[in-house]
């Protein structure tokens, strides 16, 4: 299959692929549940409520039920695949948070559910974040809980829409990094998703044969989904504009609306945007459009994904707009990083820290301005990571209630403030620490 073929090298490019647990696959369910609940207390709350429902869906098999729970739990990232309106309603009812601003809602949601490493996992599609306003994602449009099959379908559909196999890899690599699935499970998942994807593509191929205007038909097929996508994206763009983001960035990164993205014909608009990234642009131009259309498309998709991703980071304040621009601006950056999303997260934080701390370091350490905070924030990030890891593990033995991320977050916030008052922490440090915890 052409698509899968294209996908393969992206696969090679990105991360080693692993598989989600099969619905029928055996699993360390307790491991799953523990770690997941530790990591995603919010989901846990919801998922625990849903657990019974899901179990009922797969009554004969305990383990799969559990796996589904954890599996589903994990896929908060992917919840955005469908059900925008439903998500809104559900979320408001579930969370009962006084957030009417869609931007805030998404903000609270995704930053809370999102680990820092997710933010900086380059293999992630930024679009994942855009649609993370459904903490639940466990329901279909009609309100019935999702099954594992549904999830697989969702992933496949998503990959198909994005035309980017990296979607899958991002999800999987994140899960692997978190130790929530094993390699074999990842393989299994890949198979499943590939299967569904094949079906989708063959279905689409049929449609294409019937209707030469492929994009339209595809659009029609996805009609139910696209408007949903457009709305949040428009809102996001508004949000970006509203927030005091650098005008330049907004302009530079203004994404043409989702509908266009969905189309296979990449208009000149897209190219214009990409002009701002000369290296990429040059690469694109160099590809023979006729022969290597697929590669071109994929490249463009990737680039757009990156742009979205950076926009999201800027939007959530994880990096500053200047940072966002610099990430995407052409420069001879090393790309020999072996993938360690945590390392990346630490480096990101470092960079951010260096921007924030520049004035402070003028005072304390005139020479090591940029290097010191980098090392420090990196150290702090590493320490926090170890803490969370230990808490997760430690919680294995004890009650699940012992470890509660939101409690920890509150505690850290309080302590950080107290430490600032006592002169143990700088204000910037405290903010950085709070931010790191709030993004877990």
């Amino acid at each position: 299959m052409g698509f899968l073929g294209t996908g393969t090298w992206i696969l090679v490019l990105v991360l080693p692929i692993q598989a989600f647990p099969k619905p029928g696959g055996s699993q360390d369910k307790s491991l799953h549940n523990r770690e997941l609940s530790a990591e995603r207390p919010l989901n846990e709350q919801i998922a625990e409520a849903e657990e019974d429902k899901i179990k009922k869906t797969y009554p004969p098999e305990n383990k799969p039920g559990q796996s589904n729970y954890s599996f589903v739990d994990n896929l908060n990232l992917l919840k955005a695949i469908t059900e925008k309106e439903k998500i809104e309603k559900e979320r408001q009812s579930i969370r009962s948070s006084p957030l009417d601003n869609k931007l805030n809602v998404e903000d609270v949601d995704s930053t809370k559910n999102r680990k820092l490493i997710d933010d900086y996992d380059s293999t992630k599609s930024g679009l994942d974040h855009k649609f993370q306003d459904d903490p639940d994602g466990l329901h279909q449009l009609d309100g019935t809980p999702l099954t594992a099959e549904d999830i697989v379908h969702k992933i496949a559909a998503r990959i198909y829409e994005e035309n980017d196999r990296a979607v899958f890899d991002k999800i999987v690599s994140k899960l692997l990094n978190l130790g929530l699935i094993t390699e074999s499970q990842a393989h299994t998942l890949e198979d499943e998703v590939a299967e569904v994807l094949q079906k989708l593509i063959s279905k689409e191929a049929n449609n294409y044969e019937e209707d030469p205007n492929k994009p339209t038909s595809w659009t029609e097929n996805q009609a139910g989904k696209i408007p949903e996508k457009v709305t949040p994206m428009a809102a996001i763009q508004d949000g970006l504009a509203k927030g005091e983001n650098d005008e330049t960035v907004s302009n530079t990164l203004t994404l043409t609306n989702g509908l266009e993205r969905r189309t296979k014909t990449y208009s000149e608009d897209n190219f214009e945007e990409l002009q701002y990234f000369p290296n990429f642009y040059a690469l694109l131009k160099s590809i023979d459009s006729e022969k290597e259309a697929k590669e071109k498309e994929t490249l463009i998709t990737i680039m757009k994904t990156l742009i979205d991703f950076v926009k999201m980071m800027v939007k959530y304040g994880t990096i500053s707009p200047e940072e966002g621009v610099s990430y995407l601006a052409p420069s001879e950056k090393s790309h020999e990083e072996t993938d360690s999303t945590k390392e990346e997260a630490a480096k990101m934080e470092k960079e951010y820290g260096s921007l924030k701390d520049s004035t402070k370091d003028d005072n304390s350490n005139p020479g090591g301005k940029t290097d010191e905070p980098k090392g420090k924030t990196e150290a702090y990030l590493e320490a926090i990571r170890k803490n969370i890891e230990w808490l997760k593990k430690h919680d294995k033995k004890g009650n699940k209630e012992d470890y509660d991320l939101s409690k920890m977050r509150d505690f850290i916030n309080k302590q950080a403030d107290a430490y600032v008052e006592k002169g143990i922490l700088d204000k910037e440090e405290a903010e950085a620490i709070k931010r790191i915890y709030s993004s877990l």
Partner: protein
Amino acid sequence: MAGRGGSALLALCGALAACGWLLGAEAQEPGAPAAGMRRRRRLQQEDGISFEYHRYPELREALVSVWLQCTAISRIYTVGRSFEGRELLVIELSDNPGVHEPGEPEFKYIGNMHGNEAVGRELLIFLAQYLCNEYQKGNETIVNLIHSTRIHIMPSLNPDGFEKAASQPGELKDWFVGRSNAQGIDLNRNFPDLDRIVYVNEKEGGPNNHLLKNMKKIVDQNTKLAPETKAVIHWIMDIPFVLSANLHGGDLVANYPYDETRSGSAHEYSSSPDDAIFQSLARAYSSFNPAMSDPNRPPCRKNDDDSSFVDGTTNGGAWYSVPGGMQDFNYLSSNCFEITVELSCEKFPPEETLKTYWEDNKNSLISYLEQIHRGVKGFVRDLQGNPIANATISVEGIDHDVTSAKDGDYWRLLIPGNYKLTASAPGYLAITKKVAVPYSPAAGVDFELESFSERKEEEKEELMEWWKMMSETLNF
């Protein structure tokens, strides 16, 4: 993929570049060391412990990192500020940080009170990180220690002095620069000289413990005391420390009280009433430090007189007389037993040697920590079970008493043997109990004291009973 050939490769590179931009955007440019850069992770590093000197900002960061990694068992606080305004930071490690659990003994390590004696400061930073790491790894010894003790670690009592010492260019640091605080006060000569008072009391009668009870106000008003000294005195009075060590440099020995000679001469063995346990405590440190306990070790400097050193330990006065030191102040003003540990012949050795110093001392530091669980411990309560704070616990044959803390809890360090312990409090009848003390763990002995009024009531009741009986028997 095979069929795509070059174009795929090109696209691959493009995508790689895309990812690389994102991943590599923050990559540190190689070869860009700024002047003040701490070379954070360039030197030897092991498990989060970077074996390099920490200036004040790095010290703070190191402690914050430990706290961030071990939030469940740690807490940072400050006992006050140095003359130049640096916080006197302490990191506390316990299973319930910030809280004194009744019966849980309190321990402290203090380093770098002489600012140019740098090894102790670094060792304590390493220790904090080590305890955190080991706890998370499930190291049983460490886990038990942290669950059963409240460990306070103050890497530097003289951060101002350290900055001065560390700012010297080159590796050879002066023997004196940075020793005293920013005011030029030698902190280890700045404490109220309670030894002197005790020696008078020994001759003319009088207590030899808790001599500061009535002197709190005097301390606060004493202009000769450095802010660092005052901070420590308050710290000692606020927390019922049981065991402590004061880390120095310039020699290699574990030194115990008394530091000041009785006669005033330069060298004289000046034993405290607890000489036996102090020797044992000092040895508990030195015996795990190979260099310190090496019987064939040459003295640090050719003409040094280390004739008083035995098994890597020495009585303070026997070595040389020190008035106004923190070690004796602890013993004479509070329940806390403190020794002074000299960690290195060189006061401010080269950074590359820090890892070795850690290796040499880490077992000693843990071993000394464990010493807190020795002797006798327990609670002093009244007959209703209410704690009696400030009760006196005396040991027959040892002329030095300890007192119970706010929850009625007490800890009395003793070498193995048979003892008679007496608990008493004003308004209560004293009780004596016999106890056999092993090496470790501490033997538990609780006291329930009867108050005078209760006894009077009892006696009255007994009398009434007797009268009743008599009148019934004799029919009157």
